[in-house]
């Protein structure tokens, strides 16, 4: 599958707006609250007025939250027993040794 960046889902105005392009490259930083002080003011100022970028931030926030809520994939039945058996089998010969009774 071809990786698809945000430009595929953005309006043509957003595609050509240099500010939108800049913010698009910082979406993760915005969502993680990881913007450097010097980029924070300009980014937040742009976000306040650009509905397209607001939508991108919202979409990214939902995506990250969704990932965080995915949780653990259910392991197959018997995996624990198979792992235990494998480990015991590996341990076996070391414990007994050639001269063990």
């Amino acid at each position, binding site marked *: 599958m071809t*990786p698809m960046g945000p430009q*595929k*889902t953005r309006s043509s105005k957003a595609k050509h707006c240099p500010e939108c392009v800049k913010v698009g490259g910082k*979406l*993760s930083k915005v969502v993680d609250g990881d913007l450097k002080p010097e980029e924070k003011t300009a980014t937040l100022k742009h976000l306040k007025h650009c509905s397209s970028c607001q939508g991108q931030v919202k*979409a990214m926030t939902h*995506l990250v939250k969704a990932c965080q809520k995915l949780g653990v994939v259910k392991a*197959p039945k018997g995996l624990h027993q198979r792992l235990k058996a494998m*480990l015991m089998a590996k341990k076996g010969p070391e414990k007994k040794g050639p001269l063990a009774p």
Partner: protein
Amino acid sequence: MKATHDKKQDLALVEKVLSGDEAAAELFLKRYEARIFSFAYRLCGQRQDAEDLTQDTFASAFKHLKGFRAQAPLISWLFRIAAHRCQRMRRLKSGQPRRLVALDAPAVEGGPLPQHPADTRPGAEELLMRGEQKRWLEKAITLLRPEFKLVLVLRDIEGLSNEAVAETLGLSVAAVKSRLHRARMQLKGMLQS
């Protein structure tokens, strides 16, 4: 404080396992097998491969347990082993015909086909947490480029910090942030398309 406590706990558990304490080995497995299987499944996208990778990871972990120094939490150490074994598995399989997984294939074998979120409702992101979107998201994650997938799974799903992911994968924090951003953008693009 917490890190010191976890470190002590990890070292105590490892010591017991090394001394041949079966109950400790059982605890070790119970504590970590579900997360490692889960991690492996998300890297491989196939349950059988994930099970093989989980076994491989624990076999390797027990073999090298003496070398565990608790510089990182035990779970990060296991993630690192799983990531390495997965890379190895991928290399070995690269000579074989690749199993292509269609985006509309069942996320879990035997399960119903997930529908494309856009086919049924607008605003896919807002509905991600419903069952079908969850399965769709799982499937989309398996389609990410391996180096992006690793970072995204460790950071956004397993909840490791950027620093812990960097340490686990032997990357710089800047590289982790960059890969994470690209992974999220790729994922967002897939889900919005």
